[in-house]
């Protein structure tokens, strides 16, 4: 018989919390990060609406946020978190730093995906007299769609890793459970169970991303 200090309900709750944190911060992060990535691409030198001020502002911001380790970001922005969600502990308190962490990451990934688009396509768009909005809408995004899905897949997996640290503000989730019950209370079963859950999560998300990307690439 397995001996462990946690109940099935606790375990299911932690899985639920992880899914909740990942999905909410992924959605908000994408809403911020995708336009950010697009903006960086179109305003970069040689871009379709080249603008050194916008580019010169956004590019360093992405770099600065991306260079702060998540565990530090988590505590560094507690005042901001408090302001937004009225609390500095629990699941919803983790969503703010997770979003701030993932948005620039998504921005950078989106930028890379868009830069992969064949420059010839952009030239064709320009030759057709497309407006900047039309270039983005009808040329850039459709051509990069498969690659964008893979970028979001990578971002999601990055988020799962980050949620494990969100336990530091009492956010819960499987990562938190592994530390509190598995590590601090020497419950090997919890450690193994969490690792299995995380591996399954990552596998499922990556496979889903690959399938979707292949599907849109074939049209």
């Amino acid at each position, binding site marked *: 018989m397995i001996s462990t200090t946690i109940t099935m309900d606790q375990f299911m709750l932690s899985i639920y919390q992880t899914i909740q944190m990942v999905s909410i911060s992924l959605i908000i992060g994408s809403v911020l990060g995708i336009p950010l990535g697009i903006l960086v691409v179109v305003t970069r030198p040689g871009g379709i609406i080249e603008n050194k001020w916008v580019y010169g502002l956004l590019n360093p911001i992405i770099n600065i946020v991306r260079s702060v380790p998540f565990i530090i970001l988590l505590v560094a922005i507690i005042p901001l978190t408090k302001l937004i969600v009225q609390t500095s502990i629990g699941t919803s308190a983790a969503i703010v730093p997770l979003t701030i962490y993932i948005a620039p990451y998504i921005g950078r990934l989106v930028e890379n995906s868009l830069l992969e688009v*064949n420059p*010839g*396509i952009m*030239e*064709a768009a*320009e*030759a*057709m*007299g*497309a*407006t900047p909005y*039309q270039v983005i809408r*009808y*040329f850039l995004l*459709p*051509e990069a*769609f*498969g690659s964008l899905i893979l970028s979001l897949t990578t971002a999601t997996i990055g988020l799962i890793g980050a949620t494990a640290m969100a336990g530091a503000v009492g956010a819960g989730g499987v990562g938190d459970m592994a530390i509190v019950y598995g590590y601090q209370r020497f419950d090997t079963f919890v450690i193994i169970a969490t690792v299995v859950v995380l591996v399954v999560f990552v596998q499922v998300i990556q496979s889903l991303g690959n399938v979707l990307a292949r599907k*849109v*690439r*074939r*049209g």
Partner: protein
Amino acid sequence: MIELRDITKIYNKKGAAVTALRNVDLQVEKGDIYGVIGYSGAGKSTLVRLINYLEEPTEGQVLIEGVDLASYSVSELRAKKKQIGMIFQHFNLLESKTVFDNVALPLVLLKEKKQVIEKRVYELLAFVGLEDKAKQYPNELSGGQKQRVGIARALASNPTILLCDEATSALDPQTTDSILKLLKKINEEYNITVVIITHEMEVVKQICDKVAVMEKGEIIEQGAVIEVFGNPKHPTTETFVRTVIKNEVPDSLKQAIQKDGNSKLLKLDFLNQSSSEPLISKLIQRFHVKVNILFANTTDIQGAMLVTLIVQLEGEGAKAKEVIQFLEGNDVAVQEVVYP
């Protein structure tokens, strides 16, 4: 129709100024098929991109139907670009969209109604011979088919000018042939002015009316194709012409040519259709000379014949002079050739 006036284009590459075009003047009349030929780096790609303002000139003006493109606002310029179609060496089709959607794109940008788009796209696909490929993706097509899609897309917005940037350079000779025929058909049926950038003289020979030869950012020679082919002036032009029209006696024959004091080697270029007359036969009858034909080449340039003969003429010096006069009087360019 299209006029480039004293264009100079300078790029700034990491602080160093690179002159891509220097004092270029070019005039393309409505309905022309105008070829621009040159080696890579000659500036021809830059030149064609000036016509639809993908590149702006550093100096000089680009006039389309008499209006300087620099005088347009950004949105007016976008509208103008819709009247200028462009096809590319690597086709530049959207891999994520079907053939239908690719061709429909310019119409979508014009915010046309769905039914209008559908009708027009099928019309265009029928014109380029790809009705059955509408639902396929570019990566399922051959190079020639991709270029046909590119052409259909370029024609979608009913342009008056079609720019072709090395449009056949990635294709095999047969496919090139069929694409060129299609371009000719477009020119004839829709009266679209076509500008073709290429490094293949064969392309110019097959469909162009006029040609400009470029080297190091300058146009070194331009004019009607038949004239440039018949009488190339610049060495680079000569090199290009020789890729399609041979006028050299094979080496083995050169060695066999017997040298004697009484014979002359003459290169005869027949211009202006005079090749339909039995000139050589007349010449022999009139001057009683022996003519030994060493080399002959006939090139068909869109119906006009360009004939080159290299003959060995046996007869005394005075007679030879008369013969040359007679030939020149009949629109034949005569040139004495000497083999060491």
